[in-house]
C-alpha cells in the first residue's frame, strides 16, 4: 500500500514540474544554468540507472549475464537500431548467456 502512496506522489510531482514551466514567468526560468542542470541531471540519472541495473544486486556488486545485455545493447545502438530492438537485444543476450550457464 505504501508503494501506491509514493507512486501517486511521483505522479503529482511529475505533473507539478510540467505545469511549473507553463505557470512560472519565462524570464524567471529562462536561466541557462537551470536548463544545464536539468540536462546534466538527466544524463547523470540515466547513466546511474544503467549501472545500477547492470551491476547492483541489492547492496553488492555482481558481474553476471546483465553485462552481456549491456554489451549487446551498446552494439545495437551503434548500429542505430530502434529502441525496441535495443531492448530485445539486451533481453536476448541475458537469456542466452544464462542458457550457456553464466548467470
Amino acid at each position: 500500500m505504501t508503494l501506491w502512496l509514493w507512486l501517486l506522489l511521483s505522479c503529482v510531482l511529475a505533473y507539478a514540474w510540467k505545469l511549473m514551466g507553463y505557470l512560472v514567468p519565462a524570464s524567471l526560468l529562462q536561466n541557462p544554468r537551470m536548463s544545464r542542470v536539468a540536462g546534466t541531471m538527466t544524463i547523470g540519472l540515466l547513466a546511474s540507472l544503467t549501472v545500477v541495473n547492470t551491476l547492483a544486486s541489492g547492496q553488492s556488486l555482481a558481474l553476471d549475464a546483465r553485462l552481456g545485455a549491456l554489451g549487446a545493447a551498446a552494439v545495437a545502438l551503434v548500429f542505430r537500431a530502434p529502441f525496441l530492438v535495443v531492448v530485445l537485444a539486451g533481453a536476448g543476450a541475458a537469456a542466452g548467456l544464462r542458457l550457456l550457464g553464466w548467470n
Partner: protein
Amino acid sequence: MKLTQSPAVRVGLSISIATGLYGISFGALSVTSGLDFWQTMALSLLLFSGGSQFAFIGVVAGGGSGIAAMGAATLLGMRNGIYGMQLNALLQPRGWRRFAAAHVTIDESTATSTGQTDPAEQRRGFWTAGIGVFVLWNLFTAVGALAGSALGDPKQWGLDGAAVAAFLGLLWPRLKGREPVAIAVVCALATVLAVPLVPAGVPILVAALVAAVAGWFSHGRSDEGLEPDVDPYADQHHGSGASTRPGEPL
C-alpha cells in the same frame, strides 16, 4: 489546410507509433519489477514521462524504497519543466488547454513542436505527438503488462537485461559531445562506489547530485542532455525533397 498535409502532423504520428510501441517494454518490465497491473497503468496514465517511469520501476526492481523511486523519477522529470517554459513561449496555450498541454509535455512532443518554424505547425506538431504518444503509450503499456505477467520467471527471459538495455537506450541519444560523456562516466563511477555504502535506490540520487553540481559549474551548452529519446526529424536529415523538410510551409 488538411491535417494530413501538415508535415508536423505526419512527424507527430510517426513519432507516436515509434515511441508508443516501446510502452510494451515498459509494461512488461514494470510488472516483473513487482508492480501490479494498475500501478503500471497509473504510471503511464498519470506520470506519463518515459524516463521517469523507467526510473521509478528501475529503483523498485533493485530493491530500493518507494521514496527513493519517487526521488529518481521526480529529478528525471525536471527537464519537463524546462520544456514547459519553451512551449509556453512558443504555443501560449490558454485556459484548460494549458493544463492539458502540461500533461503531454514530454521529450517527443517538445521535439516535434520545436523542430517546426511556423507557429501553426508548431501547435499541430505538439498536440499530435503529445496526444498520439499518450494514447499509444498507454495502450502498449497495458499490452506489455498483461504479457509480462504471463511470462513467468522474468530472469529466464532476460528481462533484467532488457531493463539494462532500456536505460542505455534512453541515455544514448543524449551523449553528443565530450562533456555529456564525461558526466555520464563520472556519474556511473559515483554509482558504483555508492552501491555498497548506502541503501538501494540512494546511489542514483547521489549520481543526480554529482550531475547537478557538474551542470551548475560547467559552461557547456545550456540544452545539453535535453535531446529526446527518439529524433522526430531523423528521416528528414538524410531525406530528399523540400516537402519533407521540417518547418517548410506548404
